Structure formats: structure tokens, C-alpha cells
């Protein structure tokens, strides 16, 4: 098999059938724009949910009778507890400072004493910030000696759990729909282009071309269409997110953040789409009789 011939033929397709080539490149580009925009939204929706979870913090309030050594021991046992990422001790004085910062008044002056208990703030590991797991940890901490109470934003976690599951199903549904539509759209456009060359394929067989000899230039053409369509989509998205997006809404810069590798991925997905589109399409026509019945 002549590699040079396959590459030359692949490129010749651009010269010979400009319109169908343009249609295929454009279809791949539009499909990828849809897929990428959707993926970006899905990833960022997930990012928003995760950033809300990140803010969920647990606080264990300590009894006044604990001496410093007991407080340290308690803190150490909290540190090694499963699901705990880090802990921070807040003394009664610090609690009063926080109160003052939040309410603008010194509680010791209002009440003549400091009623605020010392506490240990607990940051959970990522996988433990669900309502169920957080409650398990809170229950264990409540049983520890010297812990008066444990609070965290339980309702927020419950709400996030419910919403995240719904969101995941919606995202998955739309994602599957867009992906299937894109593959069909691309395969159909390429199929039309190859259908137009059906007679040529039959003639090639008549001259003694093997199936792979006929197929490979078409696959090369599909690969190049995919590369161009992917490149175009990546270029447009880059312009959109890096310039237009920032210009329209600079507040959304975090939301519109796209890693450079994602652009490479778009081009790669374009190549796969083009390749599979032509693979599916050429298979249908290559097996036909050389003399149409």
C-alpha cells in the first residue's frame, strides 16, 4: 500500500469536492462547538456545587471544664478521625473576637463575662462533604468527652446532595443526546459526500482496487475534515472565552476558564468524529456490486 498515494488522495478530496468537504468540516465544527459549550457548562455547574460544599465547615463546641492538655488530646483525636482533613482550635478569646468582628460589640462588656465556648473547627475531606457522611462524623464527635455540641450546615448539604444528583442526571441526559446527535449529524454529512462518490467507488473496484485501497483515502479525508473542523471549533471557542467572554462579563472569568489542554482535546475529538463518520459511511458502499442492479 502506498502511503504517499493515500495522503495525496486524502488531500485531493479537498480540491475535487469543495462543497461537500466544506459541509463536513462545518458540521464537525458546529457539533464540537455544541459539545464543548455543553461540557464547559456541565464542568462549571459541578464546580459551583463543589465550591458550595467547600464552604461547609463543622464546628465542635467544647465544654469549659477541659484543661489545655485535654483540649490538645481532643484536637489530636479529631485530627486522626476518618474523613477529617484539618482542624483548627478557636479559643474563648478568639470566639469573642470573631463575635466582635461580626456584631461590632464586645460581648464581655455587654454581659460582663464571655459566654462563648472554645471550639474546634473541622474541615472535612472532599468525599465526606455529603449530608450522610458529615452526619456520621458529627455523631462520632458528639460522643467524645468534652464536646458539648457539633454544628454544620446540614440542610445546605442535604440540598446540594439532592440538587447534585438531579443536576448529574440532567447533564448526563443532555450530554448523551448532544453526543449522539453530533455523531449522527457528522456521519450523515460524510455519508452524503461519500454517496456522491458511489459510482467512483464501484469503478475503482472494477479496476481491481482492494477494499482497503479504496477505504484508506476516504478515512484520511475524514481524519483531515475532523482535524479542520476540530481546529476551527477550538479556535472559535478560544476567541469566545479568552476575548469576547472577558470583554462582555469579566466577573465570569472564573466560570469561563478553559485549560489549554481542552482545546487540544477538541481537535482530537474532531479527528475521531471525522474518522468514525467516514468509517461508518464507506462500509455501506464498499460492499455493493460493481454494476448497480
Amino acid at each position, binding site marked *: *500500500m502506498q502511503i504517499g498515494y493515500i495522503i495525496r488522495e486524502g488531500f485531493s478530496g479537498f480540491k475535487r469536492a469543495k462543497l461537500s468537504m466544506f459541509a463536513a468540516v462545518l458540521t464537525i465544527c458546529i457539533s464540537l462547538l455544541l459539545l464543548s459549550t455543553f461540557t464547559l457548562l456541565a464542568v462549571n455547574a459541578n464546580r459551583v456545587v463543589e465550591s458550595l460544599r467547600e464552604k461547609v465547615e463543622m464546628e465542635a463546641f467544647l465544654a469549659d471544664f477541659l484543661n489545655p492538655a485535654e483540649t490538645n488530646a481532643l484536637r489530636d483525636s479529631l485530627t486522626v478521625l476518618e474523613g477529617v482533613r484539618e482542624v483548627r482550635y478557636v479559643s474563648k478569646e478568639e470566639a469573642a473576637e470573631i463575635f466582635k468582628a461580626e456584631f461590632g460589640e464586645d460581648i464581655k462588656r455587654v454581659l460582663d463575662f464571655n459566654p462563648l465556648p472554645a471550639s474546634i473547627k473541622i474541615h472535612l475531606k472532599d468525599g465526606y462533604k455529603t449530608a450522610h457522611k458529615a452526619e456520621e462524623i458529627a455523631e462520632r464527635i458528639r460522643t467524645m468527652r468534652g464536646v458539648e455540641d457539633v454544628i454544620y450546615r446540614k440542610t445546605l448539604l442535604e440540598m446540594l446532595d439532592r440538587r447534585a444528583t438531579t443536576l448529574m442526571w440532567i447533564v448526563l441526559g443532555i450530554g448523551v443526546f448532544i453526543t449522539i446527535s453530533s455523531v449522527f449529524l457528522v456521519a450523515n454529512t460524510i455519508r452524503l459526500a461519500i454517496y456522491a462518490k458511489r459510482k467512483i467507488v464501484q469503478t475503482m473496484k*472494477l479496476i481491481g482496487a482492494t477494499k482497503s485501497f479504496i477505504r484508506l483515502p476516504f478515512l484520511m479525508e475524514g481524519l483531515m475534515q475532523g482535524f479542520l473542523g476540530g481546529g476551527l471549533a477550538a479556535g472559535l471557542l478560544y476567541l469566545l472565552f479568552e476575548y469576547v467572554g472577558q470583554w462582555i462579563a469579566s466577573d465570569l472569568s472564573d466560570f469561563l476558564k478553559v485549560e489549554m489542554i481542552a482545546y487540544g482535546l477538541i481537535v482530537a475529538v474532531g479527528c475521531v468524529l471525522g474518522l468514525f463518520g467516514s468509517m461508518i459511511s464507506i462500509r455501506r458502499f464498499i460492499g455493493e456490486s460493481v454494476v448497480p442492479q
Partner: protein
Amino acid sequence: MIELRNISVSFDGQEVLSGLNFSMKSGEFVYLVGPTGAGKSSLLRLLYMDLKPDAGTVHVAGYDSERTKTRDIPHLRRKLGIVFQDFKLLEDRDVYDNVAFALYVTNTKRSDIKKRVLQALAEVGLTHKRGQMPHELSGGEQQRVVIARALVNAPSLLLADEPTGNLDPHASSEIMELLRKINMRGTAILMATHNYDLVRKYPARIVKLENGKLFEVELKEKP
């Protein structure tokens, strides 16, 4: 070169060829005549193995229908030259590339391809039109390109299915002269035709396909 034994072919329950026998030697020129729908094209399709017989065996250029696998059919076709009434040129490329395609499939070296394509084009008198697209050529010229494509691999057998069917008398004569020249150099030719004037003008062995069988025909009267 060709040996057909007890060939039967039917389409939708209707028998087109039935118990047909035929043989043809290397270097022979044979006309295949018969009314429209008699099965001339089906017989040629059997020879380039686009059709399998329901019964009987086809032997052609060293291949036989019982043992030849689908993947070997392209190799058989490279040994044959095939010429059609409707030309079957690759419409998306020029004359040179149409002829060269027959060499690309056989993995011929690029430098050899150029030489052999130009030789074949010179033989059919179309070197000056090598850069033209098929639709820019007359019918006679297109058929000459097809013949050049068929010749470029130096086939031992050339199958022609009504090669002059779409051509005017002058172009038809040119094609016949060309085919005769090719035959004189040793290539066997089996040509299906309706054109009895040409058969008379360029005499050769004639077989007539009728009622699914082949009969040898003498030239004296209208075949």
C-alpha cells in the same frame, strides 16, 4: 483463457443462463451477440466475478469461481481489461489519473507509472488530453481513455461490454481499430455488441447468446 462449464444463472427465479458452455483461447477475438436481455452483460459479470453462477464453474485467466475468494477478486480484475458502454471513468480526476489509477492499485513505482501511462495514452492518441477531465472529452475520447486504462496493466484478456454502444459510426470504427490492434499484439478480446455492421467490417469468431445458451454463428447472414 476462458472456460465456462454448465453455467446456470437466474435472477428472481427466472433463468438467464442455463447449462451454458463456452471456451476461448489466448489471443482470440470473439464477438458475443444476442438480443437485449439475453444475458450478455451477466456473462461478462461472471467473468470479472461480480456475479457467481448458481451452478457450473467459471475459469478465467487462471482463476476459477469455485476456489476464488472475495479478497482475491481484485487480483483477477487487474489481469483483465474491462471496457463498458458507459465508460465508467473516475469523474473526479483527469485523464492521466484515470489511467494511472490502474497502476496505483498494483503498487507500481511512481516513475514507472508515469512512463506507462504516457505510453498507454500515446497508444490511444490522447497524450495531449492527459490534463482534461472526463466530462471535457467526447464519447469516443472517453472510451479511448477507458481502453488506455484497460491496457496499461498489459492484460491477457480484455472484456468489452458494448464498447461502441454510445458512439457515432466514426468513433465506433476508431475504437474497433484500436481493439484490433490490441488483439494483434496477443491480448484476447471478448466483446459483447449489437452492432452487426462492425461485426461484418471486422470479422472474427461470433457466439450468439439465446435462450440461456451460446451458439457459434457464421458470418454469412445477419447473426
